[in-house]
C-alpha cells in the first residue's frame, strides 16, 4: 500500500520511531512532540501524530483532540519556562498554505516582540454580496459538522482507523510534497 511506502520515507515517522535523533519533549500513545532545532524561535515545537497522516483530513477526530490538547500544554509550558510573551499555534494544510512535510504537524511557537515572525495578513475588502455568497457556501457544507468521535475516559484508545483516502489521492498529496525544494 502507498501508505506504507510513504511511511518509510517520512522523516516524521522516522523521528517518532527513534531512527532519527531529536530532542523529544513529550510522548504518549498517540502523539509526540519534539523541538525544532531550526525553529522560528528557540523553543519552537512540533506536535505530531505517531500514525502517518499526510493531511489533517485523514487524522481521526480523537487524535485531533489529543494533539491540540498537547499543543495547549506545551504552549503553557513555553510561557512558564521560557519567558515567552506569547505563543502561536500554527498549522499549514496543503502546499499553498505552506505545508512542507507530508505528515500532519502542529507548530507551537514562542513569541516575543519584534522577533521577525509574521503571521498577520492584509485584510481583503469583500463586497456585501461576496460575503453573503461565501457565507452560504460554507453553511451548505457545515450542516454535517458536529458528529465527533468521543474519547472515552479511562479506556485505552483503540487502534485508530485510517481515514479512507484512495491510493491515488494519497499519491497525489505525497507527490505534491516531494516537489518541494
Amino acid at each position, binding site marked *: 500500500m502507498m501508505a506504507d511506502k510513504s511511511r518509510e520515507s517520512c522523516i516524521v515517522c522516522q523521528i517518532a520511531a527513534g531512527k532519527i535523533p531529536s530532542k523529544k519533549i513529550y510522548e504518549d500513545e498517540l502523539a509526540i512532540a519534539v523541538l525544532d532545532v531550526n525553529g522560528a524561535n528557540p523553543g519552537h515545537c512540533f506536535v505530531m501524530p505517531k500514525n502517518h497522516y499526510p493531511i489533517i483530513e485523514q487524522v481521526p477526530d480523537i487524535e485531533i483532540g489529543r494533539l491540540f490538547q498537547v499543543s495547549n500544554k506545551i504552549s503553557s509550558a513555553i510561557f512558564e519556562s521560557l519567558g515567552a510573551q506569547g505563543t502561536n499555534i500554527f498549522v499549514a494544510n496543503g502546499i499553498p*498554505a505552506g505545508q512542507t512535510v507530508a505528515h500532519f504537524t502542529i507548530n507551537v511557537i514562542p513569541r516575543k516582540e519584534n522577533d521577525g515572525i509574521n503571521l498577520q495578513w492584509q485584510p481583503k475588502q469583500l463586497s456585501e454580496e461576496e460575503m453573503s455568497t461565501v457565507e452560504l457556501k460554507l453553511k451548505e457544507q457545515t450542516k454535517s459538522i458536529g458528529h465527533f468521535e468521543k474519547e472515552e475516559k479511562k479506556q485505552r484508545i483503540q487502534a485508530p482507523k485510517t481515514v479512507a483516502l484512495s491510493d491515488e489521492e494519497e499519491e497525489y498529496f505525497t507527490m505534491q510534497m516531494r516537489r518541494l525544494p
Partner: protein
Amino acid sequence: MAEQNISQEQLKALQEKIKQMSPEELKEFQKKQCIFCQIVAGKVQSKKVYEDEKAIAILDISPANPGHILLLTKEHYSIMPQIPDDEVAHVFMVAKAFSNSMLRSIDAQGTNIIVANGIAAGQRAQHFMVHVIPRKDNDGVNFVLPQKTMEQNEVEVVGNKLIAALTGAEKAEEKPKSMPEPKKGINLDDVSKLLGVK
C-alpha cells in the same frame, strides 16, 4: 473591541468595585465587556456559519481570504490555557471539519489554522478564537517563519526546561500563572489584571 475612555477617578472606583467581586461576578463583568460574547449571545450582528453547544463560527470581517472564519468558544476564555481539555478538543475538531469543507465548498487548495496567545503573538481580542483561513496559490497571504538554528547545548537547555514545565504541570494540574493577558489602551478588562484578580 470596545474601548472606554475613563478618568483616573472612575478607574479607581472601578478597581474598588472589582476587588469586591466574586470570581463568578468578575467573569460576568468580563463577559459584558467582550464583543465576542455579545456576538455569541446574538446581541451584535455577525455572519454566523456554524453553531453547536460549545462553539460558534463566524466570517471574519477583515479576512485574509474570502471564507476566513473565526471559531469561538461560547464560554468566555481570554487565553487558551484557561480552556478545559474537552473544549480544546472540541473546538479543533470543528476547525478540522471546516478545513475539510473549505476544500470542497469554496475551492480552497489548502488551509491555515492559527491561534494567537498574547499580544506579541498577534492576539487582539480578549476572547479565545481559532482562525481557519482558506488558501490558494499566490493569494497574497505571506506568513513569515524565519529559521533560527540552535546550538546543540541550547537545544538541551531549552528542551529540558520544557520537559520540566510539562511534567510539573501534569503533576500539579495547575494553570500557568505567568501568562500575560492581552492589553490595549485603557480597557475595563485590564483593571482585573492591574489588581491581579483572576
